[in-house]
């Protein structure tokens, strides 16, 4: 079949326990732009059991259609039944594009569909669009340096990508929006070889950086582990949390859950301080949507300043202790 015969933009409507993942709404928003370019419909593909009520939300946030497959074997996520169901649906409808959230679930499932559908899958895209040649591209940080890459899937269809959470704002919900529900029967079996034995909510250690309103992040320029304590003090004076770019996690000063960036957390605080961080693209994708970005770096041309609202070209070893003293003085 010719690639032109594949039509439609699909968004995998990840849900667990009847709750849609936020990333679904973010991707639906981006899908509007893709639709504006190609004129193809947006379908949210909803797998599960008793999940039909979620269709309303999907319509409100931009889906034209909801492709619904309900089955006991899909009640909770397991890779192989979901792979089988999605494969059957994609082979039947032949969409041109399938987008998944780059969540733990999406990144577990999508590679298996890459294999079953014999197509390309771009990992963890931070943006999507059509280029000057009308080719659908997925943007990812390129390895090394401050460069982005446009990845394309030229011939194979569907063109697939996992899309990084928190890259796009959901649209304003359209009140009373409705659309077509396409209920499909899939032939799947529960996976007898895979079983979730226990699930527990993650323990809140009180210093999680996701959801923090203020973050003070340190980078490779931090010379001593004791300097990190000064950053921690600044964070706590501002009711914020301490975080880091990758080098301070690699050298063991902080745990991986404090790492911001492509292979770490995405954060969206109101204020973020970047202290001695150069601002690689891999770091930026984790924090570029912060409301207010403040950076201290002694190198004038550091790329972090390109995305900063406030900057100081200075040595953090004098500025940060002075700032801590100044805030303490004003608070006293």
């Amino acid at each position, binding site marked *: 079949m010719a690639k032109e015969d594949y039509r439609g933009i699909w968004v995998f409507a990840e849900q667990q326990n009847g709750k849609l993942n936020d990333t679904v709404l973010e991707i639906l928003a981006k899908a509007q732009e893709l639709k504006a370019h190609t004129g193809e419909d947006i379908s949210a593909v909803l797998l599960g059991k008793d999940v039909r009520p979620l269709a309303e939300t999907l319509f409100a946030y931009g889906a034209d259609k909801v492709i619904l497959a309900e089955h006991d074997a899909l009640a909770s996520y397991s*890779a192989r039944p979901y792979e089988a169901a999605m494969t059957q649906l994609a082979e039947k409808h032949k969409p041109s594009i399938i987008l998944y959230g780059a969540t*733990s*679930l999406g*990144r*577990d499932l999508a*590679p*298996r569909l*890459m*294999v*079953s559908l*014999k*197509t*390309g*899958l771009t*990992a*963890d895209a931070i943006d999507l669009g059509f280029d000057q040649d009308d*080719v659908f591209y997925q943007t990812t940080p*390129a*390895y*090394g*340096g*401050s*460069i*982005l*890459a*446009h*990845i*394309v*899937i*030229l011939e194979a269809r569907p063109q697939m990508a996992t899309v990084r959470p928190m890259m796009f704002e959901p649209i304003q919900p359209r009140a009373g929006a409705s659309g077509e529900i396409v209920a499909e029967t899939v032939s799947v079996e529960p996976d007898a*070889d*895979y*079983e*979730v*034995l*226990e*699930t527990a909510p*993650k323990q809140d250690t009180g210093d999680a950086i996701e959801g923090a309103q203020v973050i003070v992040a340190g980078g490779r320029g931090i010379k001593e582990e004791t300097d990190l304590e000064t950053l921690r003090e600044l964070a706590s*004076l501002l009711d914020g949390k301490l975080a880091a770019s990758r080098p301070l996690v690699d050298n063991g000063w902080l745990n*991986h859950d404090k790492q911001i960036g*492509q292979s770490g957390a995405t954060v969206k605080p109101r*204020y973020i301080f970047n202290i001695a961080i150069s601002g690689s*693209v891999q770091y930026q994708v984790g924090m570029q949507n912060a409301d*207010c970005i*403040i950076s201290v770096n002694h190198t004038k041309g550091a*790329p972090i300043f*390109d*995305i*900063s*609202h*406030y*900057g*100081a070209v200075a040595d953090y070893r*004098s*500025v940060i202790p*002075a*700032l801590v003293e*100044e*805030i303490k003085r*004003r608070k006293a």
Partner: protein
Amino acid sequence: MKILVFIKQVPDTDDVKLDPKTGNIMREGVASKLNPLDANAVEAAVQLKEKYGATVHAVSMGPPQAEDALKKALALGCDEAYLLSDRAFGGADTLATAYTLSLAARKIGDYDLLLFGRHAIDGDTAQTGPATAAFLGIPQITLASSIDVQDGYVICDRVLEASSQKVRARLPAAVAVTQEINTPRYPKPINIMKALKKPRYVWNAEDLGADTSRTGIPGSPSSTKELLEPPKRNADTKYFSGSAEEIAAQIADMLHDEHLI
């Protein structure tokens, strides 16, 4: 028990040059190392071997220099090494890579457990493990932060966004491990010596019976079309200047105006 652990050699620095045409990494003259997450996978395999007895087979697809990563795996306790090396494998995306790795798994045969690092630090796709499992039609456990084998099952803890899980998969199964799973050991000099005597195999496309339209560049649906500068978002950065105390005072004023202090 027969464990296959899949490893990759990666550049030992973030500071590499890209070929502006292909977007591929220019590896010439860049020191390389065993992908750190793969060291965790090797460690997990060797710990299972020490606990229950197993043979551990390390597999890597790459250029001839990737032997170094395999030698390291042998020094860390793997028993045999397989280098999948052929010009026809070059430039592979994750689909073509997983196809090639799955052929090697089939050729080695009778595997119980396939271990992967969660992701490679030079690509970060985290797709190769699940895709290889899909080619072999076996279950997978991604994001494993612990691992044990009991009664024909592999049992792992997984740390997800908002929850943690304990899951089990019947063998044969594939597991992709995170950094939290263990602390990789250092190779002892004596084991580095011993490693040189362990069997090492090099397999090319023909050895694997590979369809070369499915390996390397021809077998890769995705490619890099363009490299570009990230957009500058705030040309109008407001700079604070002066002595450290003056800068501190200006930042504090800003924080005050924003009601942060």
